């Protein structure tokens, strides 16, 4: 399958000058990765790891004080290549929503409170679809039906709908133009598990039906296990591991990932899980060398001085760790359980 997105050595920083104090927050620091067509790519990481900033760059949605300092983000839509970091506003306009759409975090406030749903759909989708009037309305109703929303939703205001309905409307908004590339930013955070399941299956069905690629950002590893084909882990503004989902869970090649994966509880398993010490680094003054070394149980001298490059250590599996060979799945993680099961 062809690539639909190529990110090359991307750097995006917050540059601030506040009452005489200069600050440079390195939210995205040298990320290189690709996404294929018809692929669900999960991005995992803690809060303030830089993952939201990263996808904001992908969605061409950054504003000062955040700026792109280096690198490129190129989308390949059919025979068009659009570099979001350097394209003209008109070019970006032409790919928005029709080829590239975004499901935002927090469905509560993404819908204009003083506008009816049908008008919001019109604002967002009429132009990219090139439809109007009756034809457009029918298209919207058909699409909403896929999301199990009736046509009475159209005349409503955002505050008149329940949280789950609002989230489905937002998904509907993002998918109605059949975009080839969808970015989903924590779409299930703040929803209860039942609604989560609904939303996730909706997204999955739509993705299969439209054949789009989805970049899925969430800190919830179970969602990745459920949805993603490949997963990339971002830590302190850097991509530190990337692998097909199963491989990532079963055989992680970075100590951070090992801990992340082990955090998923399993029914009946009472093994105590080791917690990482310390906290994520300050992105305005990150530690030298590997940014994870202050917390890493496997850290050695070189980790403190030199940044490990993100290399392919096993086919299809990249890791940024000097000691990737020594990384073992932790007690209590799924991998160990699977191995135990297969042995027993």
């Amino acid at each position, binding site marked *: 399958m062809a690539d639909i997105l190529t990110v090359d050595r991307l750097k995006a920083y917050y540059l601030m000058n506040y009452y005489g104090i200069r600050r440079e927050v390195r939210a995205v620091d040298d990320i290189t990765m690709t996404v294929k067509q018809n692929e669900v790519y999960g991005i995992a990481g803690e809060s303030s790891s830089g993952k939201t900033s990263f996808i904001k760059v992908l*969605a061409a*949605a950054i504003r000062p004080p955040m700026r792109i300092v280096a690198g490129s983000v190129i989308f390949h839509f059919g025979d068009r290549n659009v570099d979001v970091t350097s394209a003209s506003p008109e070019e*970006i*306009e032409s790919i*928005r*929503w029709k080829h590239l*759409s*975004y499901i*935002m975090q*927090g469905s509560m*406030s*993404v*819908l*204009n*409170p*003083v*506008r009816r749903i049908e*008008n919001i759909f019109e*604002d*967002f989708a009429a*132009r*990219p679809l090139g439809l109007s009037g009756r034809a457009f309305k029918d298209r919207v109703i058909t699409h909403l039906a896929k999301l199990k929303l009736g046509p009475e939703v159209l005349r409503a*205001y955002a*505050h008149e709908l329940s949280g789950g309905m609002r989230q489905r409307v937002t998904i509907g*908004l993002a998918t109605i133009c059949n975009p080839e590339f969808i970015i989903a930013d924590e779409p299930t955070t703040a929803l209860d598990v039942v609604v989560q399941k609904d939303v996730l299956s909706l997204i999955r069905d739509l993705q299969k039906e439209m054949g789009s690629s989805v970049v899925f950002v969430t800190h919830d590893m179970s969602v990745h296990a459920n949805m993603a084909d490949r997963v990339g882990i971002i830590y302190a503004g850097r991509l530190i591991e990337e692998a097909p989902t199963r491989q990532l869970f079963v055989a992680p090649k970075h100590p951070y990932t090992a801990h992340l994966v082990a955090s998923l509880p399993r029914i009946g398993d009472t093994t105590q899980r080791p917690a990482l010490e310390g906290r994520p680094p300050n992105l305005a003054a990150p530690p030298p060398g590997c940014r994870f070394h202050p917390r890493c149980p496997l850290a050695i001298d070189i980790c403190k001085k030199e940044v490990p490059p993100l290399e392919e250590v096993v086919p299809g599996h990249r890791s940024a760790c000097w000691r990737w060979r020594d990384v073992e799945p932790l007690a209590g993680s799924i991998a160990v359980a699977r191995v135990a099961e297969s042995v027993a």
Partner: protein
Amino acid sequence: MKTYLLFALKRFIQLVAVVFAGCSVAFVVSHLSPISPVEMVIGRVSGQSSYSPEAIESLRATLTELFGLNVPLHEQYFNFLRRLVVVDFGPALIAFPRPAMQLVMLALPWTLGLLSVAVIFTWVLGNIVGGLAGYYQNSRFLKAFGIVAIGAQPIPYYIVAFLMVIIFGFLWPVLPISDGFSMNVRPGWTFEFIASVLHHSILPAASLTIVGIGTWFLGMRALVSNIVTEDYVTYAELAGVKQDRVVFSYVIRNAVVPQLTALAMALGGIFSGTIITEQVFGYPGLGSLLVRAVNGGDSALVLAVSCISVIAVASAIFIIDLAHPLIDPRVKAE
């Protein structure tokens, strides 16, 4: 629909209560005077020429009866309220025996006209320009406008009006600085009259606009700067919604709601500013009437103007309150 009518009814009751309270305050204040209005009139009358003591006595008796002062205070209050309902304030001293209400009704249209103009130019225009300034933060024209607005905004109405009189009265006399219309034009629905009215309203309206527009401009600009960071605006921009649609339907539309509330709160002040400005320009509205009444010792007229002012402002606030649920669908009409 029914909930809305119920809501309107509740607000109307509140309006009545406010008018009642406000006029009562005016009544109480006007009766605080250590000098009885009867004595004031007598003092002035006898200062102009001499009268026999019997004449003064009968004058006193008549006036006392006329002013309704021959009954105890709470009965006076009752009479006042009774007459308030039919808007009867008694005769105006400075234009005896014409009813004070008649003078007020003559002056009211001028004031309301100027007030409407003031609100339209300052609120509507100020909000639009402020909204654009908050959204297009890099426009130099809008920034310059902002600085001028900041400069003019804190200056009280009187001083700006005064300066305008100085500039246009003495330095550059191109616009009329007094009266509602030219003296040689007969009032009536003729083109000449209307043109003259408009001509004479330019300076007072301009004076009101200069002072007022700054407040709304700055408020709207700050409001819009915050709204622009809201999720739904960011999302709409992300989705490529056309910019003028975003500016008007997403940003300004949401910012108008708190500004409408602010307008209701500020109306009392705008009204005061209007009548102050009128006074400077000799505009034939309530302001000039009020000053003439005070200088003429006409307590009935002063009371009349005060009560009518309270009614006018409270009614305007009532109308704005009614508009609130229509503009903001989140507001429950209750």
